[in-house]
C-alpha cells in the first residue's frame, strides 16, 4: 500500500454555462489540472457523473472522456452514486494509487444540468431516490429536505433563522471565489423572505441547477514530492451507505452513512476529530449542512443550528466550513461536487486560497452525500506546508 497525494487540481466556473457542453467542461477542468500538476501522462481516468444519461442521453463517459482528451491508451472508469458520484470517483482513484494499480490517475467530476428544464431536472434528481415509493409520491428533492427541516425545527425547537445562517456563510465565502455560481452577499432576512420552494424550505437555502467540472490528479506521495514542493496527502478515503428509504431509518435526522464514513476515515487516517482544521460538507440545503456537521461529530445532534448561528463555521471560526461557498454558494453540479470539494480543500492546504485562506489549515475533511443520505463519502487531506 502506498501513500497517496494530490498533485494537480483544476475546475471550471460553476453556473449556467450555456456555451459549454458536457465535453467542453471535461476538457477545461482536466487540462487545468494537468497544467497545475505539470504532467502529461495519465494511467487511468475516473469519471464521476450522476445525470448525463438522463439529461444529455449520454452514457459511456469513461470512453468519451478518453476521446475528448485525445488519449488513446488510457483505461477509464465511470461511476455513479447520485450526488456523491464525485466523491466516489475520487475514492476509487485513491484506491488505484494506494494499492498500486496505477501511478498517475485523473479524477474528473462533471455535470451539465442547464441543458434540461427545471421540471426535467427535478425529475432527474429523483432518480437518486426510490422510484416506486418515493418519486412516485410526486415529491422532489427540495421537498425531501423540507421534510427534514420541519422535523428538525419541531424536534429540537430551533428557529429557522439559525439554520438559514448556513446559507449566509456560504454566500459570504463564495463572494471571493471567482469560480462560484453565486457571489452576492445575503443575510438571514434575505433567506427567509426568498420564495418558498417546498414548505418550509426557501429558495436561498437550496442549491440550484448548475453546470461545472472539477478535476484532480493523484499519484503516490513519493512521486508527488518530486513534482510539487508541498503536495497534499490523502490520509483517508471512505464510503458508506444508509437505508435507501429515508422513512425506514431509525432516526431520520441522523445519516448513518456519514457517521460510518467519518468513523472509518478517522481510523484510517489515525487522527481524531479535533485534528481537523476545516471542512467541506454537503450543504445541498442548509438543513443538510447542519445535519452533516452533527453526523460528522463536530457538534451534538440538535445543536448544529446554534453552532452555525454562533459563527463557528466562518473562516475565522473554530471550524471553517465550506470555505469557497459550498454547494449553495460555489454551486452544486451534482456529479462534480465531490471533486470541487477536493480542489478547494487542496487550495486551502497549499496556502493558495487567497482572500478565503484559513489560517493554520493543516488537515481538512470533505464530505459528499448521495441521495438523501443513503450514500456518503468522506476524505481527509493533509497539507505539507512548512
Amino acid at each position, binding site marked *: 500500500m502506498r501513500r497517496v497525494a494530490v498533485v494537480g487540481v483544476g475546475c471550471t466556473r460553476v453556473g449556467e454555462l450555456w456555451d459549454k457542453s458536457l465535453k467542453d467542461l471535461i476538457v477545461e477542468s482536466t487540462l487545468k489540472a494537468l497544467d497545475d500538476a505539470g504532467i502529461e501522462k495519465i494511467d487511468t481516468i475516473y469519471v464521476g457523473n450522476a445525470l448525463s444519461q438522463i439529461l444529455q442521453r449520454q452514457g459511456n463517459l469513461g470512453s468519451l472522456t478518453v476521446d475528448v482528451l485525445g488519449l488513446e491508451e488510457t483505461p477509464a472508469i465511470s461511476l455513479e452514486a447520485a450526488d456523491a458520484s464525485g466523491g466516489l470517483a475520487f475514492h476509487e482513484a485513491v484506491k488505484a494509487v494506494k494499492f498500486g494499480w496505477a501511478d498517475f490517475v485523473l479524477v474528473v467530476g462533471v455535470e451539465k444540468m442547464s441543458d434540461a428544464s427545471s*421540471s426535467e431536472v*427535478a425529475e432527474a434528481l429523483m432518480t437518486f431516490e426510490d422510484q416506486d415509493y418515493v418519486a412516485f*409520491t410526486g*415529491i422532489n428533492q427540495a421537498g425531501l429536505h*423540507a421534510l427534514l427541516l*420541519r422535523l428538525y425545527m419541531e424536534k429540537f425547537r430551533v428557529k429557522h433563522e439559525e439554520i438559514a445562517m448556513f446559507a449566509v456563510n456560504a454566500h459570504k465565502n463564495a463572494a471571493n471565489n471567482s469560480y462560484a455560481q453565486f457571489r452576492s452577499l445575503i443575510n438571514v432576512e434575505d433567506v427567509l423572505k426568498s420564495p418558498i420552494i417546498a*414548505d418550509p424550505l426557501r429558495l436561498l437555502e437550496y442549491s440550484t441547477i448548475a453546470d461545472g467540472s472539477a478535476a484532480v490528479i493523484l499519484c503516490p506521495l513519493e512521486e508527488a514530492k518530486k513534482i510539487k514542493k508541498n503536495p497534499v496527502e490523502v490520509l483517508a478515503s471512505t464510503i458508506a451507505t444508509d437505508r435507501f428509504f429515508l422513512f*425506514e431509518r431509525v432516526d431520520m435526522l441522523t445519516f448513518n452513512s456519514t457517521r460510518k464514513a467519518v468513523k472509518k476515515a478517522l481510523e484510517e487516517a489515525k487522527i481524531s476529530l479535533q485534528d481537523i482544521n476545516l471542512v467541506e460538507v454537503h450543504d445541498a440545503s442548509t438543513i443538510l449542512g447542519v445535519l452533516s456537521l452533527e453526523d460528522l461529530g463536530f457538534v451534538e445532534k440538535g445543536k448544529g443550528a446554534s453552532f452555525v448561528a454562533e459563527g463557528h463555521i466562518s473562516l475565522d471560526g473554530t471550524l471553517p466550513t465550506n470555505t469557497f461557498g459550498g454547494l449553495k454558494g460555489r454551486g452544486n453540479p451534482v456529479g462534480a461536487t465531490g471533486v470541487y470539494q477536493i480542489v478547494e480543500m487542496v487550495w486551502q492546504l497549499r496556502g493558495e486560497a487567497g482572500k478565503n485562506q484559513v489560517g493554520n489549515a493543516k488537515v481538512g475533511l470533505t464530505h459528499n452525500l448521495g441521495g438523501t443520505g443513503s450514500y456518503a463519502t468522506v476524505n481527509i487531506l493533509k497539507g505539507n506546508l512548512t
Partner: protein
Amino acid sequence: MTTTSVPKYWREIKYRYRLIGSRCLQCGKIFFPHRAVCRVCGSRKLEDYKLSEKGEVLSFTVIRRNSPSSFEKNVPYIVGLIKLENGITLLSQIVDCSIEEVSIGMPVELTFRKIKEAGKEGIIEYGFKFRPVLK
C-alpha cells in the same frame, strides 16, 4: 420523462392499491415497501402483509415549484411522512386537506387516488394517498 413503463407500474399494483408490505416469517419484522430479504435476520422467506390504513403525520411539505413533470397540474400539493402502526413510516401525498390545516400529529387514513397519467393517451397510474380521518 412522461412516458410510463406499463410493466413497471403493473408489478406494483397490488402493493400500492392495498398498501401491502412484507412480513418476515422468521423474525416477524414488518417492512414497507415490500422486500425479498429480511434486513433484521436475513431470512429469504417473507409474506405479503397488509398495513394499517390509519396513521399520523410526522412531517409534511408543500410542493409549489419544480414538481417532477406529470405532477405539474397538481401543484400545490402536500407530501408528508406518515407513521402507521407496526413501526412503519411511509411517504405519501396528503389530500382533502388545505395547506393551512395540515399539521404534525394530524390523524390520517388511506384513500385511493390517481397518482399521474401519461398524457391523454397513456395509462392512468393509481395508488395510495392519505386524507384527514373522517369525523
